[in-house]
């Protein structure tokens, strides 16, 4: 029967293994095998009391086994000490929660956390939550999640070894970073679409009269203009300008204004500098009669809140009465 050692015991075992790094892998495995069974017998709080620190254990073991001290001081010794302190802190934190209950959850979810963080960093987020989208493909995200979960479970259940210990720590570090990414989520939101995601398959939007729709304005129930990210029924971003505009936007990522018909469009970008293609209203400009570029104003609408109750003005303008649903 194999058992899972607590994080503190596993750390103890790893540090003893580190202290015997000059032994052959087989010899070290023999020692670790004995110690693992020994640790399993000890209560959590008895480890330090009966065995001393891992370094004490290694020193005493070496003396009685007649082993010489390692001939060279391990490189990155300072780094090791920092790592040890971090592990001790993590273990103290782990002691505050009931790990035997939470650990399986951690083991089974950290693969998903890792791939989700990747998807978020890559600006893709989730195709359909909770499946992360990698390479524009939820299937790839799902496959990678399954693979990462398998690796996580394997690291937890396979016998300890030096290579496994390193991989396991690397995995835990990566998952910690992933958690940080997910919590801080640098991605502007799961609804934002960058320009390279949806520009080639759209037909230009048209109104009921067949005329192209160049811009879209949205208002909240109070009649205040709002910025919105628009998608169709399949989650594809709605784009309202000719494809060449988006082409230009993609080819000139640093350019603020993209020439368009007899004017220009200024795309808004996320914090990574990527064009957010479906964020409306677009900032359109037109050349006036004097060749000056000026921003196209929003249409004048009849919202009471927006217009302070004044009646709509001008022909062809829309008056909309909004009532709140119960």
């Amino acid at each position, binding site marked *: 029967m194999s*058992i899972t050692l607590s994080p503190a015991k596993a750390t103890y075992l790893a540090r003893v293994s580190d202290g015997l790094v000059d032994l052959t892998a087989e010899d070290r495995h023999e020692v670790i095998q004995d110690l693992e*069974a*020994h640790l*399993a017998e000890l209560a959590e709080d008895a480890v330090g009391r009966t065995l001393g620190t891992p370094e004490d*254990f*290694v020193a005493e073991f070496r003396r*009685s086994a007649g082993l010489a001290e390692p001939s060279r001081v391990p490189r990155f010794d300072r780094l090791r000490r920092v790592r040890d302190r971090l592990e001790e802190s993590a273990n103290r934190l782990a002691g505050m929660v009931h790990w035997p209950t939470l650990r399986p959850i951690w083991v089974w979810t950290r693969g998903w956390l890792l791939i989700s963080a990747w998807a978020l960093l890559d600006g893709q987020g989730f195709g359909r939550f909770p499946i992360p989208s990698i390479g524009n493909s939820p299937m790839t995200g799902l496959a990678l999640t399954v693979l990462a979960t398998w690796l996580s479970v394997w690291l937890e259940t396979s016998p300890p070894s030096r290579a496994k210990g390193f991989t396991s720590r690397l995995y835990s570090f990566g998952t910690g970073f992933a958690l940080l990414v997910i919590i801080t989520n640098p991605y502007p939101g799961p609804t934002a679409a960058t320009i390279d995601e949806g520009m080639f398959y759209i037909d230009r939007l048209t109104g009921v009269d067949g005329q192209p729709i160049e811009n879209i304005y949205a208002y909240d129930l109070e009649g205040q203009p709002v910025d919105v990210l628009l998608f169709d029924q399949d989650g594809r971003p709605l784009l309202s300008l000719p494809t060449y505009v988006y082409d230009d936007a993609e080819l000139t990522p640093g350019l603020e204004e993209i020439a368009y018909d007899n004017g220009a469009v200024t795309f808004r970008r996320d914090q990574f500098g990527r064009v957010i293609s479906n964020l409306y209203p677009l900032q359109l400009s037109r050349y006036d009669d004097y060749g000056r570029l000026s921003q196209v104003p929003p249409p004048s609408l009849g919202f009471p809140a927006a217009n302070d109750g004044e009646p709509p003005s001008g022909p062809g303008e829309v008056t909309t009465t909004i009532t709140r649903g119960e």
Partner: protein
Amino acid sequence: MDSTQILKGVLDTAVLAVLDRGNTYGYDLVRQLRSVGLEEVGDASVYGTLRRLFGAGYLTSEIVPSEEGPARKYYGLNRAGVDLLERSKKTWREFAGVMDHLLEGEEE
């Protein structure tokens, strides 16, 4: 007098003596040593001693699956281990006799 210094010199013999009672694994060996009064024995010292004696060819070892935890490695004495124990007993008795004689002489 600090018995830990003496213990260091006779730990090999103590380990061999426990294994002479029957094969056992590290944790149980430590427990048996403590139960007979060797409270100061260090766990790591016992494992180091086991490794040294095993490496020198005095012990056998066998992995035995356990229902309660990870597989345990049981150690036992082979022929060379039994011979070493006999020699160690003889040495210890001679040494203890000399020390008894010496200390009794001091008390007179």
